[in-house]
C-alpha cells in the first residue's frame, strides 16, 4: 500500500519535473526571452540587496549634501548626483524596489478578485450574475486606467500605499474580462459538460476544470502587466502622485531631473533608461511565456 502511494508520488513529481523542463526548453529557445529573464533576475536581486550592494545606501533616505549637488557621472558617482547631492545610481537601484513592489502588490491584490469574478461570470454566462459582474467591469473599463488612477490618487493623499490602492482598484476588471472570455468559451467544452453531468460541484468546475486552462493567459498577462503597472506607477509619480520624498522612485526622479535638462541630463536620462529596461525585461519574459504556452495549445 505504502509502496503504491510512493510510486504514485514519484510519478507525479516526475511528470511535474518533465513539464517544467519542457517549458524551460521552449522558453530558452528564444534568446531574447532568456536575456529578459536574466535582466529581470539581476534587477530583482539588486533591488532586493540594494542596501548592501549600492555605493551610497544612505542616499536613498534622509540625506542632503548640497556641496556635491549636480555632479556629472564619474567613477565616484556612476550616474552622477542629483540636485541635492545624492548618488543617482544608488537611487535608481532603490527605485526598482518601489517599482517591483508596486507591481507585485497591485497584481496580487487585483488578480485574485478579477479571476474569481471572471470565472463566475464566464461560467454563468447569460444569467443575471454575468450581467451584473460584466456591466460593473465595463464601467471600470470605460476609461483608460491612467485616467482613473490619476483621478483617484489626485484626491487621496499621495503616497506609495494610495498609489497601489488606486491602481489595484483598477486592475481586477482586466483579469475579469480575460478570464471571462476564456471561461465562457470553455463552458461549452465537453470536459466541463462532462464534469457537470457527473455531478461535480461548482467549485470543482470553476477552480479545477476551468481555472487551470486560464492559468496560461493569466500568467502571460501578469508578466506583461507588471510592465504596464510599473509604467503606470512611474507615470503617477511623474505627475507627483506617487511615493513621497525622499523615497527613491523612478518616475519622480525623471520628472525632477527633467527640470534640469539639458544641463544635468544624467539625473533624468538614467532613471528613464532604468524604467525602459525593467519594462522591456518584463515584456521579453512575457513573450517567452507566451511562446511556452502557445506551443502547448497546438
Amino acid at each position, binding site marked *: 500500500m505504502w509502496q503504491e502511494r510512493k510510486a504514485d508520488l514519484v510519478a507525479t513529481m516526475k511528470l511535474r519535473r518533465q513539464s517544467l523542463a519542457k517549458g524551460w526548453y*521552449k522558453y530558452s*529557445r528564444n534568446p531574447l526571452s532568456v536575456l529578459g529573464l536574466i535582466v529581470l533576475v539581476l534587477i530583482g536581486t539588486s533591488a532586493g540587496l540594494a542596501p548592501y550592494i549600492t555605493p551610497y545606501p544612505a542616499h536613498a533616505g534622509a540625506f542632503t549634501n548640497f556641496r556635491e549637488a549636480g555632479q556629472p557621472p564619474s567613477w565616484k558617482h556612476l550616474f552622477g548626483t542629483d540636485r541635492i547631492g545624492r548618488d543617482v545610481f544608488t537611487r535608481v537601484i532603490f527605485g526598482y524596489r518601489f517599482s517591483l513592489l508596486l507591481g507585485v502588490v497591485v497584481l496580487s491584490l487585483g488578480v485574485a478578485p478579477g479571476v474569481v469574478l471572471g470565472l463566475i461570470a464566464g461560467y454563468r454566462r447569460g444569467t443575471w450574475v454575468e450581467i451584473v459582474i460584466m456591466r460593473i467591469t465595463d464601467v471600470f473599463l470605460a476609461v483608460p486606467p491612467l485616467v482613473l488612477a490619476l483621478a483617484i490618487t489626485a484626491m487621496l493623499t499621495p503616497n506609495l500605499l494610495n498609489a497601489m490602492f488606486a491602481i489595484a482598484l483598477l486592475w481586477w476588471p482586466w483579469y475579469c474580462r480575460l478570464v471571462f472570455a476564456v471561461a465562457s468559451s470553455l463552458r461549452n467544452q465537453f470536459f466541463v459538460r462532462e464534469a457537470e453531468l457527473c455531478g461535480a460541484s461548482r467549485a470543482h468546475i470553476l477552480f479545477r476544470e476551468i481555472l487551470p486552462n486560464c492559468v496560461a493567459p493569466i500568467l502571460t498577462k501578469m508578466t506583461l502587466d507588471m510592465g504596464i503597472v510599473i509604467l503606470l506607477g512611474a507615470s503617477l509619480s511623474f505627475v507627483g502622485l506617487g511615493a513621497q520624498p525622499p523615497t527613491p522612485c523612478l518616475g519622480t526622479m525623471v520628472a525632477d531631473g527633467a527640470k534640469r535638462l539639458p544641463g544635468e541630463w544624467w539625473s533624468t536620462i538614467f532613471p528613464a533608461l532604468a524604467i525602459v529596461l525593467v519594462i522591456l525585461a518584463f515584456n521579453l519574459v512575457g513573450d517567452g511565456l507566451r511562446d511556452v504556452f502557445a506551443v502547448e495549445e497546438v
Partner: protein
Amino acid sequence: MALLEVVDLHVGYRVFEGYLKVLNGVNFEIEEQERVGLVGETGCGKTTLVKTILRVLPVPPARIQRGQVLYHGKDILLMSPREVRGLRRREMTAIFQDPLQALNPMFTIGTQLRDILKDSQERVGRGQRTQRAITARCISALRDTGMPDPERIMSNYPIQLSGGMRQRVCIAEALSRNVRLLLADEPTTNLDVTIQDQILRKLDQLVDQRGASVLIITHSMGVVRDLTQRLYIMYAGSMVETGRTKGVLASPLHPYTQGLMRSVPRLTGQGISDGIPGRIPNYLQPPSGCRFHPRCAHAMPVCVEAPPPFYPAGDNHRVACYLYRS
C-alpha cells in the same frame, strides 16, 4: 513518360522538439488521364506530399531533403517561381480537405473565382466585354458542379454556404481552367454520405469531360473503389502498396493494408477485426527500416534494417514488403 512522377521524396518539419522525418522516400506516378487513389491514415503525410508537389509547403518549418517531383519529366522542385506559377495556372490544381479554410472568408465567391480567371493565362481580351465574359465563365463553372442558382452564389460569402456548397465552389475554382492534373486532398471527408455521393459523382463527370488526371486522397477505401483505377496505400511517409484499385481491395498483400481492410466495417455485418495494434510512429524517431515493423505480425530481422523496395506481385500490383521478396 508519366504525367507526374515523384521519386524518392524525403520531406520533414523542423519543430521545437526536433526534426520530424515525415515523408520517407515516397515514389509514385500518375499517368495521363489516369485516376489514382491515395489512401492513408491521419498523419501519414498525404497533405505534405500534395503541398510538396504544388510547391506550397511552408519552408521553414518544412524542409525538402531530397527527391524529385517530375512533371512531364521536369523537376518542379527546381523550377523558378515564375515557372511554378505558370504551371499552376495551366497545368495542375488542387482541392483541399477543409472547404471553409480553403476559401477566403473576406471575399465573395464571385471575386475569388473571377480573380482566378483573370490571372490565369486564358485571356480573352480587355475591357467591359472581358469582365462580362469572365463572369459568365464563372457562373458556368459553378453550374457545372451542380450548384443551384449560381448567379446568387457569386455574390455570397463562404460562410453563407453549407459545407457541400463550399466544396462545390472549391471544385469550380479548381476546374474553372482547363488543367491537366487535379490533386484532390480529402475532398469529401467532412461531408455526409449523401452529399459526398453527389459531389464525387460530379467531380468524376467533370474530370472525365476535361480529360484530366486526378489524384484522390482519402481515408475511405470505399471512395477510391468507386472513383479510381489505381490505388496507392501510404503508411507513415511512404507508399506500401499499389495496384489496380479493385485488385488491391479484394486481395491486399501488405500486412498494413490487410489490417486496414479488416478494420473497415462492412455492410455485410460480419463484425470487425481488432484493427492494427499500436499506432502511427513518432516522426521524431521513426522506426528504422520498414516503418511498419513494430506493428507488424510478420516482422523479420530484415525489416528493421532497410526500408523495403516495391516488389511486384503480379498484374500491376506492387508491395513494399519483404514478405514478397521472392
